[in-house]
């Protein structure tokens, strides 16, 4: 207990630590959030309206009125689509089928095709998402006044990157990175600091058991990481409208499991690192970079060479990101992610065992 109190004092009295712990997460999430969302303002689109009737004109108007889109070109045939994309400033082409309004009236259903330039996957995804919500919005409005409800079928196509992986939902990735950073890096640094200042010598000579030292080190960071996870979710939800469709309890439980994993990694690193500097470098290169690059957060794993894909499989964040994406975005329950959870669990158990075992009761 006393150890935990002492550890909290270390954290709270060191502005540098505080900035890393609470500043970086907020800055990162805002940065990622705004870098992605600002690009959708006034995005250039082209319209290929094959029916030019009342409904299509209304929808087109709604698209421009939203402020997200600017119509750069009105196309007349399918042949012009490719050309429009190649000019570069057209990000999406909206195609209304022939007899759009008529189909709506007669069959209660009409088709719109959205083709997006997915060279910039994030933007493409958002644009398509916005366009379809505007169209959906139109449908909802109309349905209020008409007795027979109708629907517009939206056919989305991503050009140039058909199998677009949604990194639009950046929150899972940010969470994985932040939790790795805070939990692993900060614990490993704080243990290395004790070694550097010589206080570890005294702790070792005391009757404290390794488990007590580890628990004392880990508990404060566990609590702070949890606070961080919650604040990331909150910022995601309130600032960027990232939903949590699944069970919040399950999400938090999985998050705790991941924090535990990161903490045990941190302790493991500290058993190797003798100085704070070394602990930091090791956490950066061994944890941070792989979390960013090899977890499928920034770059889709499917596009990597096979040998790199194999390496990705042993990256714990990868599994965590899959889990929270599923819970947050698809709203799936434990039934569908038990495999990933089990993998995380095995990782955690492995590293806890390893670090307790490697934790030296002597100096050498």
């Amino acid at each position, binding site marked *: 207990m006393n150890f935990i109190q002492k550890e909290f004092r*270390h954290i709270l009295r060191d502005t540098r630590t505080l900035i890393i712990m609470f500043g970086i997460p907020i800055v990162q999430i805002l940065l990622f959030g705004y870098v992605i969302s600002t690009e959708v303002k006034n995005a250039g689109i082209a319209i290929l309206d094959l029916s030019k009737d009342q409904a299509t004109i209304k929808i087109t108007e709604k698209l421009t009125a939203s402020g997200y889109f600017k119509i750069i070109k009105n196309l007349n045939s399918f042949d012009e689509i490719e050309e429009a994309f190649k000019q570069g400033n057209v990000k999406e082409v909206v195609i209304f089928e022939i007899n759009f309004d008529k189909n709506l009236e007669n069959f209660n259903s009409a088709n719109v095709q959205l083709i997006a330039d997915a060279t910039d996957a994030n933007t493409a995804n958002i644009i398509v998402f916005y366009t379809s919500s505007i169209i959906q919005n139109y449908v909802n409005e109309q349905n209020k006044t008409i007795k027979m409800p109708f629907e517009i079928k939206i056919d989305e196509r991503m050009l140039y990157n058909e199998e677009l992986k949604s990194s639009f939902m950046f929150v899972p990735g940010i969470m994985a990175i932040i939790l790795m950073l805070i939990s692993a890096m900060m614990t490993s640094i704080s243990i290395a600091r004790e070694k550097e*200042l010589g206080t570890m010598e005294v702790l*070792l000579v005391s009757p404290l058991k390794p488990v007590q030292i580890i628990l004392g080190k880990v508990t404060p960071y566990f609590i702070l990481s949890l606070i961080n996870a919650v604040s990331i979710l909150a910022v995601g939800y309130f600032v960027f409208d990232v939903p949590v469709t699944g069970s919040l309890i399950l999400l938090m439980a999985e998050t705790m499991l991941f924090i535990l994993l990161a903490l045990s990694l941190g302790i493991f690193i500290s058993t190797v690192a003798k100085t704070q500097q070394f602990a930091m470098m090791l956490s950066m290169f061994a944890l941070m970079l792989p979390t960013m690059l090899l977890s499928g957060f920034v770059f889709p794993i499917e596009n990597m060479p096979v040998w790199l894909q194999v390496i990705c499989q042993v990256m714990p964040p990868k599994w965590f990101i899959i889990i929270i994406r599923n819970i947050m975005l698809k709203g799936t329950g434990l039934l569908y992610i038990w495999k990933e959870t089990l993998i995380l669990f095995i990782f955690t158990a492995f590293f806890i065992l390893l670090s307790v075992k490697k934790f030296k009761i002597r100096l050498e």
Partner: protein
Amino acid sequence: MFLNIDYQNLMTSLRVKNISKKYDKVQAISDISFNAEKGELFGLIGPDGAGKTTIFRILTTLILPDNGEVFFENLDIIKDFKKIRQITGYMPGKYSLYQDLTVEENLNFFAAVFGVKVEDNYYLIKEIYEHIAPFKKRLAGKLSGGMKQKLALCCALIHKPQILILDEPTTGVDAVSRKEFWEMLQKLKTQNITILVSTPYMDEAALCNRVALIQKGKILDIDTPENIISKFQHKLISVKSFDKQKLIKDLRSYEFSNSVFAFGESIHYTDKRQKTDVKEIVEYLINKNHKEIKVEEIKPNIEDCFMDLMKK
């Protein structure tokens, strides 16, 4: 004779037998043996790199010796390391205080680590702690060297250890604090605590009950400071002149010269002959054109003995 030995064994609290330790290719200490008695202030005296810290780390169970054995009372330092850790007070070379905790918080923390309350053993540190009590709300990192040293001693004592191990406690501390510190140690002896101190300062040796002189991982001699001095066989001469550098050179080239060491202002000189002729030395120096020559016989101190033992 036998009775005498038994009696000694009863008093002995720490027995170090033939310990050696090698780091990679460097032999840090070899074949170190000594005993320390209950309530004794035992000093390890030697320059930096002599192996003092290595010995202390072995005694505090922080590292394992390559061979040899150490017993405290009847506890084996290797097998019973957990018990040893409960009764050891250790103050490492770098004062291991938490710089970002206050004086009070440091003390409370170290008490808690050993499962005691500060009040329980306060009487033991009272006199020392009173020096720093006015600053108890100050961060340890903002204390002066002398105060840090006192706080570290309090932290090492708060669980009432039976053996206190202090690694170079006076290094980097001003002269007044050093004096105060040794006075505190003298008082602690009366609490029946076995105290081991290491120091590179030879003048501090005289303040110990017994000292072990250590050089390059080997013990040169173990005895009381008085006995060590009385073993000094030469006549020690202090020589001064206007030009100190030239004086050292000339004395070294003197035909009867045994040892010549600079010692602050003066030069400590010993002679190869049984009977050192002071007059002859003066004459020799006058011939060498030295001015303001001052030659006198003095009593050797521990450092002279150390230098002499090193030569052997």
